[in-house]
């Protein structure tokens, strides 16, 4: 087993298959550490406050949900901030997943949102009250969302 130094409060990770790098969201230090496949840090990228979840789009971008600043940030594989999207009115953003050309996420107040063509869209109804993580089901073209308070996982068809 091997350990690698990252920032403070490492939270979640994502793998960038294009650059074969591992991205670690450091919640307490407001940055992302990028590691190569041997675990060596190659760069540190500043983010919004409390970055938590990451999602790779399968191409050149990595997406980061920033909890307390209520942002979803889009970075190039080299770490350049390309866009920043405010997630407002529905609580802090939590888990995110990328599929079919769109970024999907959940908020603490139970909304599912998507970012497509530079625009943020929210579900018209809440699906819970403390959503946490999200995963894509390729077999059914649907998303699964965990709800901590209700004790359920909900399927959403985008």
């Amino acid at each position, binding site marked *: *087993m091997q350990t690698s130094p990252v920032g403070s409060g490492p939270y*979640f990770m994502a793998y960038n298959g294009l650059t*074969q790098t591992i991205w670690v969201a450091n919640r307490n230090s407001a940055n992302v550490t990028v590691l190569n496949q041997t675990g060596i840090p190659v760069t540190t990228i500043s983010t919004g406050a409390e970055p938590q979840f990451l999602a790779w789009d399968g191409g050149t971008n990595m997406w980061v949900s920033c909890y307390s600043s209520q942002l979803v940030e889009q970075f190039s594989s080299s770490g350049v901030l390309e866009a920043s999207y405010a997630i407002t009115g529905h609580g802090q953003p939590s888990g995110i997943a990328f599929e079919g050309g769109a970024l999907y996420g959940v908020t603490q107040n139970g909304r599912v949102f998507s970012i497509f063509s530079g625009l943020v869209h929210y579900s018209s109804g809440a*699906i819970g009250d403390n959503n*946490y993580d999200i*995963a894509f089901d390729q077999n059914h073209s649907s998303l699964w969302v965990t709800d901590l308070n*209700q004790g359920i*996982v*909900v399927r959403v068809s985008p």
Partner: protein
Amino acid sequence: MKKLLVPISFALVLLFAVVRPSAGQSIVCDWLDTGTQPSGVTVDGQGNVFVALFAAGEIAEFSQGSCVPRFISTTGPNPNGVAVDNNNNLWVTMEGSDTIEKINISTGNGTSYTVGSNPRGVIFDGTSI
């Protein structure tokens, strides 16, 4: 009963307000009752859903097309992140015991690895382990 009605109402909201099902797509179940505090979730290539149950210290597995969970025990408390590798293993971060568990999905047998404090996320990079 109250707990049951609430998710059903959520499912209805999804069906009529959020969900836009594709024509001909079968909807098997639109919500799954996992128990307390489901945290991390992942879906494998066959459509099986795995959910870490933070408070219960278990993993709920919903086989593709099933709305009834199979519970997989973990040896440590507070599972959080989950990932599936190419060899039918489930990898789980155990936030309460500072370990990562590798669990054979078929047998439920696991191996525990000590890591740093309060591990959360886990990913699989696509290579064999």
